[in-house]
């Protein structure tokens, strides 16, 4: 089959690789019909995630048709059209029992590597480094899906790929980011980052009853989509001081909750950002936390800081004093996608949200390497790329 594989930082190549096989009884093999490039793929692509090796297949947002099932599967059948959740979860451990699927205790065969970096290992993830399991990803013609009964949802007839594809990651991730804010009537929610996850977080904040939603970014095309498609207010941080603008917009209170939908490769316009950029380049810290610092400083006392942007390791200069003295609540997590797929599918079916609004680019799998560049450099007003094998 053809698959988009890692070559070196800033470079992928579509290679011919062997087709995946059933390895465990609860596996399914899916023939991929649509797959997407995710913002967190860029962390891999740029070389900031440890244990990525040349030849690794990327991609964790994909869907398709089940062509083969292992003898231990009960729900998925050959011929089903399914969307696949990006975290791999067994469904039978303590964490899965609490619906904390991205913390599954059994799905990462290389858990020992992640334990060394994080103390405990999260779940395995498709196409996301060896530390996260070494599973082949979904930017390919086929993918092996472990624990297929737990990690897939069947698509009802009459719904298109593009309507449901984002149930694999970014829609549930944005939704969980908003849900963690525990939104009350009258709440003002500020979201850092107007990329795909940020846009879904904003739309979800409205779905969950927020009074006002404010998006922060520097890319005008993305701010425009936030305003026009999501009906959010926006701040361009290169033109305005975010803290002062937010205080002005909220009568000095600050947003009731803040969402970091940017993560470890944040940009900024302050000296501190440059310090982080240099440290990250010298491997003195893994992640650039300037968005997290800003979000904490802006959040009103007693509010929630919800973090769905990806962080990989260590950060410096974390304003713990602000968090502790002002009773802030930090809520984070890789999305427990399996928990959200069904209810969000319902919302899409009822027409409460149309997830296709952020697709800007459609291309063939063979164009993946060029599309990675377009997406990374935000050229051509790119927000979301969908690939068809």
């Amino acid at each position, binding site marked *: 089959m053809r698959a988009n594989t890692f070559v070196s930082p800033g470079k992928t190549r579509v290679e011919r690789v062997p087709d*995946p096989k059933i390895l465990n009884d*609860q596996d399914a093999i899916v023939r991929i019909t649509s797959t997407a490039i995710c913002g967190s793929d860029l962390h891999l692509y740029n070389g900031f995630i440890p244990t990525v090796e040349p030849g690794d297949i990327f991609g964790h947002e994909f869907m398709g048709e089940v062509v083969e099932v292992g003898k231990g599967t009960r729900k998925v059948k050959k011929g089903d059209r399914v969307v696949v959740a990006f975290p791999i979860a*067994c469904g039978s451990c303590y964490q899965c029992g609490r619906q904390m699927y991205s913390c599954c205790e*059994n799905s990462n065969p290389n858990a020992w590597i992640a334990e060394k970096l994080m103390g405990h290992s999260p779940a395995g993830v498709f196409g996301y480094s*060896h530390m996260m399991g*070494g599973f082949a990803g979904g930017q390919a013609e086929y993918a092996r899906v472990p624990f297929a009964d737990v990690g897939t949802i069947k698509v009802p007839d009459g719904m298109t790929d593009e309507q449901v594809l984002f149930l694999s990651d970014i829609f549930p991730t944005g939704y969980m980011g908003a849900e963690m804010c525990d939104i009350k009537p009258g709440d003002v929610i500020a979201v850092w980052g107007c990329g795909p996850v940020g846009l879904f977080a904003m739309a979800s904040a409205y779905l969950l009853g927020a009074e006002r939603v404010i998006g922060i970014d520097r890319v005008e095309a993305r701010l425009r989509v936030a305003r026009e498609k999501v009906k959010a207010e926006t701040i361009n941080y290169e033109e305005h001081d975010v803290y002062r603008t937010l205080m002005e917009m909220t009568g000095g209170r600050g947003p009731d909750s803040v969402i970091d939908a940017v993560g470890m490769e944040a940009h900024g316009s302050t000296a501190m950002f440059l310090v982080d950029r240099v440290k990250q380049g010298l491997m003195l810290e893994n992640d650039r936390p300037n968005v997290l610092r800003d979000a904490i400083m802006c959040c009103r006392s007693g509010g929630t800081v919800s973090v769905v942007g990806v962080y990989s390791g260590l950060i410096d200069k974390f304003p713990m004093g602000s968090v502790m003295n002002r009773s802030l609540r930090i809520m984070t997590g890789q999305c427990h996608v399996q928990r959200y797929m069904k209810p969000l599918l319902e919302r899409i079916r009822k027409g409460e949200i149309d997830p296709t609004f952020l697709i800007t680019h459609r291309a063939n799998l063979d164009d993946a390497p060029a599309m990675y560049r377009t997406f990374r450099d935000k050229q051509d007003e790119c927000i979301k790329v969908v690939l068809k094998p």
Partner: protein
Amino acid sequence: MTTTHLSPRPAYPGSRQLPRSRSAIDPEAVSGRGDGGERLAKALGWFSIGLGLASLAAPRGIARLIGARGDHADETILRLVGLQEVACGIGILATRKPTGWLWARVAGDAVHLSLLSGAMASGPEDPNRMAAATAAIAGITVLDAGNALQLGRSRRPARRAASEVIKSVTINRPAEELYRFWRDFRNLPRIMSHLESVEVEGETRSRWTAKAPAGMTVQWDAEITKDVPNQLIGWESVGGRVDTRGSVRFAPAPGGRGTEVHVRMWVDPPGGALGLWFAWLFGESPDQQVSDDLRHFKQVMETGEVVLSSGGFDGTHIAQRPAQPPGSIPAR
């Protein structure tokens, strides 16, 4: 090694004093053998820090003392030397067996000697002082190297006994199910990747075959020393040249979370080829091996199988190549 019966301690969180670096079977602890160079190492550590701080704080004074010119270049060099000395000193004092740090000092000494010979050649401020300083450093080099060798020698027995492993995992299953799986030793190769087979040869006797390098295998017999249904299994090797004992204990986890599995194992690597084999088998870390085995145990009991990704079964290094054919995976 004497074979005493294992008496695993109760493992109630908080009540347990885990043996840290010195296990109960550390021969040094048992035989009370004295100072293997640790005292000298400490002294050298403090000396290193003192000299380092002096070079950092007063490079000119030090330069005068060793008869160098004390110009700007000398100052920079002495500050760097100071940093290296302080680092080595801290390393020596902070580690229990600072052999590596002492060798680092030896390397530093060699650099200092070559710096001094360079300074000698370029015309020192005071040749007599510089000669004295060179002699002093040469003396210290001998002391450092001797101490490093001494510590390295006395380290071996400690390492032999350090292969005690204590590991736990919580499995979302009742104790009797876990006990039943483990008690039938023939199941263990399913979760222990280094085991080829276990044959049961009687009520308490079993024959274990493990993989060794180059397609070879190694065998030993084991005897069950303790067997409390659904709670405890203890075993030890008999006869063969592999000396190992261990126990696994099953205790209910709080809050209905299944069962805590506590494993304690000792492996006393014999010398010769087998010693080499064990070094390979347990790598740098018998800990890792047992962790992986327990993880596989949990996966098998909770999901029915050892979970594979697109690559190898081997948990000791990254053997996975998702873009390569997954044919290299041992079928299990």
